[in-house]
């Protein structure tokens, strides 16, 4: 096996924060090499250096044994290094072919377009993708967009392919299919770097694994011989097991959703006559294949999208279906949206402001003319400590500088600052590492034990199974099946697919 890419002694800092500290990594042709680590461990930063997006402060990059200086992503691609980012770098209104031509320019638009179509067809056939070059990327599913990203990189003749958390956005079945494709690619001689925080993916699909922690590469191992416990130890330092759940001791109905109907602006119905109830002290899990109305349900529950018809009844507050977000807050409905930085936090505002905004409208920090910033900071400091939000150097620091897990903890701290009556959590552990995920789950279970009605909407079946007292399966905007705990994973999986 030849060494394709070697990184040695890489250091990189952002605003004085050392993201990478003497990191080293190497991958050979034909190898699937996993880069394992928690969020904020520096995996993406290290790979962004390899892909030419970040210039390292110091350190050496060698491709095929020759040291190189990468001037930018395009230069990296010329050297044969291509990266599929976690947040896709696709121009949404463009077609598939336009996106691929953009990244792999060819002289002459018409001839270039023809050649690009041919190249797409060739790659799609090799990889077993069904990609139509003339479809708009905005109309594609997440899995399809990822396929476009992979084809885009491969069309450019890349021999070192970096996949940044590729399965984070996929369902189980889609993830399996992708990882099989990755294996097939490696067999053609491509060096594949699989950035991930999922241990089972490493165990099942990687030839080698390098573990990162706190910006350093701490070990390289063979996943077939290393035990799960060893790898976990290396990644996390120490493990936090999920606490034993208290017995299921629910009260009366706290949240009742009746005949909820939603439609998109173009008239397509996204939620059709959907009904369910959640009792106090109960976690109600909503599973389903992505794009079956889960996002719309979450948005309707927290008040981002008013439903066309139906009721959202909360004990003590009445029907909130058409109520404003403040009315929902007054009814103690806690919202934990899927996309933290679009719907939960204002990245450019400070941590204190992001925390205080939850209660500022009810006068907790002074009346309308003046805001008591000291009270705001005191409350935030207390919450940051209580909810173990790390990486806070100052309460004035921008919220965007928090890593995913800590940002989510900040959201939960705000939403739980008053005892919540109803919790709506959409993909609460998306993009979080094991430890942060465990912490989030603990908080949700604590809310349940304190008597809240908790709705967890997630495409991660493990998360649903761990948390839920009752599980619903959503398909095409309806609830098609309900299961009591302990639920049969197979049966849930079948219900998800049968109607999907």
């Amino acid at each position, binding site marked *: 096996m030849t060494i394709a890419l070697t990184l040695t002694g890489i250091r990189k800092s*952002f605003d004085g924060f050392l993201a990478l500290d003497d990191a080293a990594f190497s991958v050979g042709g034909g190898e699937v090499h996993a880069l394992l680590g928690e969020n904020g461990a520096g995996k993406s930063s290290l790979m962004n250096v390899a892909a030419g997006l970040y210039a390292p402060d110091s350190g050496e990059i060698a491709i095929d044994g020759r040291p190189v200086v990468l001037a930018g*992503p395009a230069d990296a691609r010329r050297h044969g290094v291509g990266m599929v980012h976690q947040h896709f*770098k*696709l*121009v949404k209104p463009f077609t598939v072919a336009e996106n691929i031509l*953009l990244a792999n320019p060819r002289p002459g*638009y018409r001839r270039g377009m023809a050649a690009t179509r041919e190249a797409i067809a060739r790659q799609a056939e090799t990889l077993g993708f069904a990609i139509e070059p003339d479809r708009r990327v905005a109309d594609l599913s997440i899995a399809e967009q990822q396929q476009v990203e992979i084809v885009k990189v491969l069309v450019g003749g890349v021999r070192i392919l970096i996949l940044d958390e590729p399965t984070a956005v996929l369902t189980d079945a889609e993830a399996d299919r992708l990882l099989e494709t990755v294996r097939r690619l490696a067999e053609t001689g491509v060096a594949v770097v699989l950035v991930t925080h999922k241990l089972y993916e490493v165990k099942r699909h990687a030839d080698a694994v390098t573990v990162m922690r706190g910006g350093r590469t701490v070990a390289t191992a063979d996943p077939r011989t290393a035990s799960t416990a060893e790898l976990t130890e290396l990644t996390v330092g120490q493990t936090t097991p999920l606490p034993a759940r208290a017995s299921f001791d629910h009260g009366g109905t706290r949240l009742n959703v009746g005949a909820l109907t939603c439609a998109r*602006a173009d008239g397509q119905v996204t939620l059709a006559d959907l009904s369910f109830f959640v009792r106090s002290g109960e976690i109600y899990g909503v599973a389903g294949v992505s794009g079956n109305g889960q996002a719309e349900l979450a948005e309707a529950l927290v008040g981002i999208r008013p439903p066309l018809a139906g009721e959202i009844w909360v004990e003590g507050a009445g029907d909130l279906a058409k109520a404003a977000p403040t009315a929902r807050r007054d009814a103690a409905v806690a919202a934990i949206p899927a996309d933290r930085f679009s719907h939960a936090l204002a990245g450019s505002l400070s941590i204190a402001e992001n925390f205080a905004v939850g209660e500022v409208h009810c006068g907790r920090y002074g009346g309308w003319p003046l805001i008591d910033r000291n009270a705001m900071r005191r409350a935030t400091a207390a919450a940051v400590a209580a909810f173990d939000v790390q990486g806070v150097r100052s309460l004035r620091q921008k919220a965007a500088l928090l890593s995913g897990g800590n940002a989510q903890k900040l959201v939960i701290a705000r939403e739980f600052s008053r005892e919540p009556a109803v919790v709506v959590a959409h993909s609460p552990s998306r993009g979080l590492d094991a430890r942060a995920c465990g912490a989030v789950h603990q908080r949700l279970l604590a809310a349940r034990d304190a008597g809240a009605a908790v709705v967890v909407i997630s495409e991660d079946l493990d998360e649903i199974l761990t948390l839920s007292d009752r599980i619903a399966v959503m398909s095409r905007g309806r609830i098609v099946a309900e299961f009591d705990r302990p639920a049969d994973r197979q049966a849930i999986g079948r219900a998800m697919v049968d109607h999907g």
Partner: protein
Amino acid sequence: MTDFLINWIAGIPVTAAPYALAALGLIISERSGILNLSAEGLMLVGAMTGVASCIVLGGHPLIALVIAMVASSVVSLLFAMLTVVLRINQVIAGLAIVFFCQGLTGLIGNLAGWQNHPIAGLDKWTIGPLSEIPGIGKILFIQDPVVYLAIPIFYLVNRVLRFSMVGLNLRAVGENPAAADAAGVSVALYRIAAIVAGSALVGLAGAYISVVGVKLWFTGMVGGRGWIAVALVIFARWAPWPALGGALLFGCIEAVIPRIAAAGIRVPQYLMLMLPYLATIAVMVWAGATQRGGAGEPGALGQPHVREERR
């Protein structure tokens, strides 16, 4: 009545051309993601330099138009530096350029004594026997060269935007600069080039008003047409041909104003002069009510691009 109609319609291209050219110039720069409010100012620069070059240099008026285009492009480099290099808020930068140009053209033009100095201007072309056709001849075949040139310019810009590598890169920069950057397209270079190229057309629009339309220059003669062009771009959803349609609509309104007075119809003068702006509001209301979801708007319009920002 027929005479009134023919004269009115024949007058439309002259009033519509500044709107059309300015809107097209703005479309080029806004497609690259730069929210460009500088049109009014750059049109003033074009209007003044056009007349100035006629008075000072003489020569063919088409040369004056070219000089005006160059002058606007040079001034637009200031806007490009503010928005692309320094990443100042694009609305503020655009407004600053407008007020700067208002002051600058007023100062230079009056110091040099170009105010109300009549020039020969650009004559209309009479296209042979075709111009003899009753009605249609006067409307279609007796117009100035810029009007005839406008059609191929629109065709060319539309084609380059939609079916060329340059256009593909430019649109990508405007829709998703991070993706364009990752694809190896220089975001800053494309944005600066788009501003400069678009501003040449905006300058041409301004010079057209003074050199071809009024055939003299006075302070602030653009009179808000630049702002209407900004509105036209939104109305046209950032697409060239609809912008031409919109420009013709405004041309219609502007062309009818003097003719109504001339025909002896008694309507309050200021109400008539207000019409284009009233129409702007009406068009915006219509656009807002019918075109939901920001279709056509470049995804990154108004957003400066910074590469190494961590989220």
